[in-house]
């Protein structure tokens, strides 16, 4: 038996919580977890938010974020229990033996310093390499991670490179001091799928070549299946199942794991368009004030009553700008917006109350889209009062009806947003949009910030409400699985242009244009070897060209 590099026994972690209105108190968030990581092994930690994945990952660096404290247990790294050594030893461990790659490299790089300086900082600080040795090692790593102009990229500042490149720089930062273990904390979650696949491939190649052990933390099983040797499933700070990647993906033992593997169970047959379109955009061109380039070029599309048009594309493709144009927040430079056979005035102030009522929005971040000092009743009641002049009992009655529609009881009327879970918050936002009885709701990445199982529930709710209220959705998302689940027709956007547009069945069937092909083939699939297959196919295609 080989000696394990990391041995975690009975790890218990606590945190101080500050409930709204209540006294702060300590709770246990990880309840005794055990695991081992061997030299060169990649262990995937998977679970929904609140499962304790990041907290456990950071515990291998003897670190607690915010008010998080390790209460009990042992974390052995390289033969010593790091929870009982002194601070100077912990500092040698951090950045030397164990390194960390965070979800948002953009926020994790110091904006005031050059990339190279930050990448080599630990190696030099811990005396592992001299400055020049560390620099040449960093440049080797930039090559290995296929960064553009690897010899000079280190001289740039973080804001001068793209998000995907910065994420690879962060990986270089973690690998530079030749650590024994790297903790990857959702390293590709914030990236577009087409970027994610490159970063994923780069990370996987680097791990294999260097032979470093890793903890790979993610909520996305399809991603972890590509890089991990073993997977540990966590829920609410408890280990649910631990096995090889093959076993977890192909024959999960536990109910919860099966639910995670089979998520996205929604099957939505596409509906045929009936009647005349509720919204028609013709040749919309738009740009932001003070800039000199168009963000939208000649965008034309139609949405039919009680249907869903999904708008897909990467960040920067103009999806949200399209929503701003339709709502009147950004008047287009050119083009026409027809709503229900009448032309909408381009700017918000000259629209009628009726125009405003008929188009509502739901946002990605439910918690910042609500006033934290208003109760659920006030939040949902406001549009009822504003558009229908209902007050008192009538208003309350309508709020209860809406709460019922979003599958929440009337006991929520007096609660504040801080007392709700992420999914409940988004439901309240849906109720607020429905309260105006709109013909069209613009959903801007409404499930992106939610866990898969919760997101699934929200999508089902949206579909039910659609058939109930005959409302049309303009559904903006970067997630193709969501699109498949909910759309009737699809617009693929790229650099502000409509790349592909039509019925769902048509858009998702070959022959594809290059971009749609790239986009579709980049969506991780929950099977072993998917990443290698895609990369091999792409290599062959580019060799053929």
């Amino acid at each position, binding site marked *: 038996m080989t000696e394990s590099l990391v041995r975690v026994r009975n790890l218990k972690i606590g945190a101080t919580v500050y409930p709204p209105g209540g006294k702060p108190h300590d709770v246990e968030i990880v309840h005794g977890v055990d695991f081992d990581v061997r030299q060169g092994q990649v262990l995937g930690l998977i679970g929904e938010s609140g499962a304790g994945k990041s907290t456990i990952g950071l515990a291998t660096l003897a670190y607690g974020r915010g008010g998080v404290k390790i209460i009990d247990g042992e974390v052995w790294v390289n033969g010593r229990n790091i929870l009982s050594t002194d601070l100077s030893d912990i500092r040698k461990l951090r950045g030397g033996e164990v*390194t960390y790659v965070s979800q948002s490299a953009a926020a994790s790089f110091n904006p*005031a310093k050059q990339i190279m300086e930050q990448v080599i*900082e630990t190696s030099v600080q811990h005396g592992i390499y001299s400055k020049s040795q560390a620099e040449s090692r960093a440049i080797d790593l930039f090559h290995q991670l296929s960064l553009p102009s690897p010899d000079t990229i280190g001289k740039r500042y973080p*804001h*001068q490179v793209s998000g995907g490149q910065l994420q690879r720089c962060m990986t270089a930062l973690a690998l530079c001091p030749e650590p024994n273990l790297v903790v990857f904390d959702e390293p590709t979650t914030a990236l577009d799928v087409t970027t994610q696949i490159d970063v994923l491939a780069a990370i996987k190649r680097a791990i294999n070549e260097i032979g470093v052990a890793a903890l790979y933390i993610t909520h996305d099983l399809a991603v972890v299946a590509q890089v991990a040797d073993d997977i540990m499933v966590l829920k609410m700070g408890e280990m649910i199942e631990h096995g090889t990647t093959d076993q977890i993906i192909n024959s999960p033992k536990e109910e919860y794991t099966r639910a995670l593997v089979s998520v996205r169970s929604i099957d939505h047959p596409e509906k045929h368009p009936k009647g005349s379109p509720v919204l028609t955009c013709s040749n919309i061109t738009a740009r932001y004030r003070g800039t000199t380039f168009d963000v939208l070029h000649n965008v034309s599309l139609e949405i039919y009553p009680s249907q869903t048009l999904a708008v897909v594309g990467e960040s920067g493709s103009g999806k949200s700008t399209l929503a701003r144009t339709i709502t009147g927040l950004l008047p287009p430079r050119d083009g026409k917006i027809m709503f229900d056979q009448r032309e909408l005035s381009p700017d918000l102030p000259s629209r009628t109350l009726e125009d405003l009522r008929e188009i509502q929005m739901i946002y990605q971040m439910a918690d910042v889209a609500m006033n934290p000092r208003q109760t659920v009743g006030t939040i949902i009641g406001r549009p009822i009062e504003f558009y229908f002049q209902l007050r008192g009992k009538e208003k309350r009655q309508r709020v209860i009806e809406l709460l019922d529609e979003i599958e929440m009881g009337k006991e929520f009327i007096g609660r504040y947003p801080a007392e709700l879970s992420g999914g409940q918050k988004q439901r309240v936002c849906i109720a607020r949009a429905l309260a105006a009885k709109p013909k069209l709701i613009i959903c801007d990445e409404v499930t992106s910030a939610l866990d898969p199982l919760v997101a699934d529930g929200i999508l089902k709710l949206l579909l039910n409400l659609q058939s109930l209220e005959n409302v049309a959705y303009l559904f903006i998302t970067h997630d193709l699985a969501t699109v498949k689940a909910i759309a009737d027709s699809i617009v693929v956007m790229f650099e502000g242009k409509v790349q592909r547009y039509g019925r769902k069945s048509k858009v998702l069937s070959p022959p594809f244009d290059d971009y749609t092909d790239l986009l579709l083939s980049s969506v991780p699939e929950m099977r072993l070897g998917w990443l290698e297959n895609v990369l091999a196919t792409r290599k062959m295609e580019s060799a053929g060209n």
Partner: protein
Amino acid sequence: MGLLAKLLAQRIALGLLLLFLISIFIFAGTLLLPGDVAQQILGQTATPEALANLRAKLGVNEPPIDRYLTWLGGLLTGDLGTALTSGQNINEALFRRLANTFFLAFWAAIIAVPLAIFLGLLAVRFRDRWPDKLISASTLSTISMPEFVIGYILMFILGVKLRWFSPTAVGYRPDADLLSRLDSIAIPIMVLTLVVLAHMMRMTRAAILNVMQSAYIETAELKGLSTFTVIRKHAFPNAISPVVNVVMLNLAYLVVGVVVVEVVFVYPGLGQYLVDHVTKRDIPVVQACGIIFATIYIGLNLVADLISILTNPRLRHPK
């Protein structure tokens, strides 16, 4: 580089425009001052004819617009005008006084700024523990006391009782050797330091604590760096802009706001010069002091802006 140059040029142009507007305000403001310079010079017993003659001679009867334009023209050519009471050119007296004020402000700043930033860093390092609380409490209590009170207290203890330093600046001679000059302004320096310390220290603390919430500080901690290295290398460079702003405001205060301290310690600086001539209703001197103060104030804030722009990596290294 074009963007940066454009921004800098914009700031400088704005500063000049502001200065022009302020010249109008100062001129209009001094017109509203009550009192009559001729009466002040000739005394209560002067005859109406004598007063009228003197007024005509001093040129205070001409229309305000003409007087403003003459004054502005003088300013642009570097001539601050002539004092009504003494008939002397203002430039010479004013710049001699200004040099004294700068001397005092310089030594106060040399002590106060590094001390404030160091105390701010210390407060962050021992955040919410006793050193932090002690620093906050003591600096806040000194800023809460009027500076003349602190001035008289220190004068009494250090100057009169202990006799460590000269109690007032009466003996100050600009041509004396440095040590005796410093001896005469030692207590004023302390007063000024105590007055400006709290503001700068609190801002340093707040700015760095704000930066300490960032993800890149967590990254730095997970690199195994010591707390002080994290603050010095990763937090401080990103907190420079707000700190520089408050430092410049306080430097401006050291030059412009020392009137009270100069009067308390009888220091021959610009503040005292101004106060003297306000009592004499000598408008040109008041105007000249006003415009000099405004120039220094705007100039220092301009420098703060420029430093903020220059330390912003996004502006210094555009994509």
